[in-house]
């Protein structure tokens, strides 16, 4: 341990003993000392803050006691199971025994990306999307889930855990689907939705950048940050040129435009058309990506469909890790 390495200790100990400091450290010490004094807190505010904290805690469900935890994992180096996993596991086991899929889904709602019920949570989101009443409701759901993904990643980072790729993948696909859904709006509604999303993403990007500082090499966080930045660029594009944005995302006409016949006069019906209002989650193969928010290289093909899902070797890292169904991206499962 060198003198330099313990420089701060030297500053502290010499200051405490009223000894002279290294001349080069003196200005540092003097400057830092200026922040030593802090104002008194308002006792009423302190009391109110304390009460608010306790009130908030009082309405939270009491976490499960430790005997419900799977403790063996801590001895052999594997990750300790979260209490939620243990509780959720119990609920799932009961649900399977008694055929209660709803209980499983309910149990999964608080699952974190490291929990084994997390895929169930994502699957319930898919179902909710298919039940959404239209683009506006879809956008609202997506807005909430984008926040949910970021919150999950934040919590894991704050807990010092490695963030798995799954929430970042889902974030990317949900951002892509949000763009596709937004492209169905007419100009005034599109501008309104994009501006709202822009504000939301700006704040979330700040959060993500902070998390990246805590975990600069985390692949999931890096991927999520890039997706947020890309989406901001897409939003900017949508605000500047809505028509080009719609073309880019496959919705040629706003959903509130007058209806057009699906076939030319005199032509036979060609089969079921894919309606923009069918924007929904993955395909029948169980993919959780939104239809059409296909895989491929992020910077080259942003939000566009790449037929085979392979990465372009000349491009920046893949931002669309989740292989989605290949199609025009507007229907449940595309085509």
């Amino acid at each position, binding site marked *: 341990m060198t003198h330099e*390495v313990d*420089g701060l200790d030297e500053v502290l100990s010499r200051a405490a003993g009223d000894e002279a400091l290294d001349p080069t*450290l003196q200005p*540092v010490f003097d*400057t830092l000392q200026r922040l030593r004094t802090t104002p008194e807190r308002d006792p009423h505010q302190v009391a109110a803050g304390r009460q608010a904290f306790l009130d908030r805690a*009082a309405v939270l469900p009491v976490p499960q006691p430790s005997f419900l935890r799977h403790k063996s994992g801590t001895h052999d180096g594997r990750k300790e199971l979260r209490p939620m996993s243990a509780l959720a596991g119990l609920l799932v086991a009961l649900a399977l025994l008694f055929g209660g899929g709803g209980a499983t889904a309910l149990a999964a709602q608080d699952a*974190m990306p490291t929990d084994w019920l997390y895929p169930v949570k994502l699957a319930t989101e898919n179902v909710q999307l298919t039940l959404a009443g239209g683009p506006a409701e879809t956008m609202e759901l997506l807005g909430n889930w984008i926040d949910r993904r970021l919150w999950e990643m934040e*919590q894991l980072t704050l807990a010092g855990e490695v963030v798995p790729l799954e929430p970042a993948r889902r974030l990317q696909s949900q951002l892509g689907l949000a763009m596709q859904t937004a492209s169905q709006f007419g100009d005034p509604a599109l501008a309104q939705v994009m501006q709202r999303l822009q504000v939301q993403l700006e704040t979330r990007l700040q959060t993500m950048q902070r998390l990246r500082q805590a975990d600069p090499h985390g692949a999931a966080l890096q991927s999520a940050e890039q997706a947020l930045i890309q989406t901001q660029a897409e939003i900017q594009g949508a605000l500047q040129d809505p028509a080009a944005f719609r073309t880019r995302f496959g919705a040629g006409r706003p959903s509130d435009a007058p209806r057009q016949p699906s076939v030319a006069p005199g032509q036979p019906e060609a089969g079921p058309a894919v309606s923009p209002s069918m924007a929904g989650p993955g395909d029948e193969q169980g993919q959780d990506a939104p239809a059409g928010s296909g895989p491929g290289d992020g910077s080259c093909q942003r939000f566009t469909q790449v037929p085979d899902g392979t990465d372009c070797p000349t491009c920046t890292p893949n931002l669309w890790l989740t292989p989605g169904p290949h199609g025009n991206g507007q229907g449940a499962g595309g085509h």
Partner: protein
Amino acid sequence: MSDPDRWLPGVRRLDPESLGAVYDALSPALFRYAFRLLGDVRIAEDVVAETFARLLMAIRNGGGPQVYLGAYLYRIAHNLAMDHHRQLASLPLEDADLAAAPAVQDEDEHDRRVARQALWRLTPDQRQVIVLKFYQGLSNEEVAAALAKPVGAVKSLQHRALDALRRVLTGPEVGWSVSHDS
């Protein structure tokens, strides 16, 4: 393990007595921590409130601190302080105010502002080391827990932080920072 960490089991059970004790023990230190970085009483109180709220959210979701409660809270507070700092820095009006600051502030306030600016010139980890150790009196082990880094890395961060401060305060940028005596 410092005193507040002893309440961790109770805090994880959301036991009101433990939660109250931790609030009483740590909220003053968290307030001072946030105030030193941000220089605004109201925002510092907001940071304290949000820090404790996030602790509850984390525990509710099965996460939160496992060993070092204090370190965990400082980490949250630092992240929140950084968010606030970025927000303030992004306001053009604030920039204008800062530029005009020496002319409108009293000398002590100007000195504090200079010191705060010097801290914000550090990297986040360096800043945390300086604030947690110099002001809050945390040990190297506690700082290491707050930063989620080994103790050796904390010592090396200390060294780099002091070097950076020395450069900022005595280097070519000295006119920007501390020469208020003239």
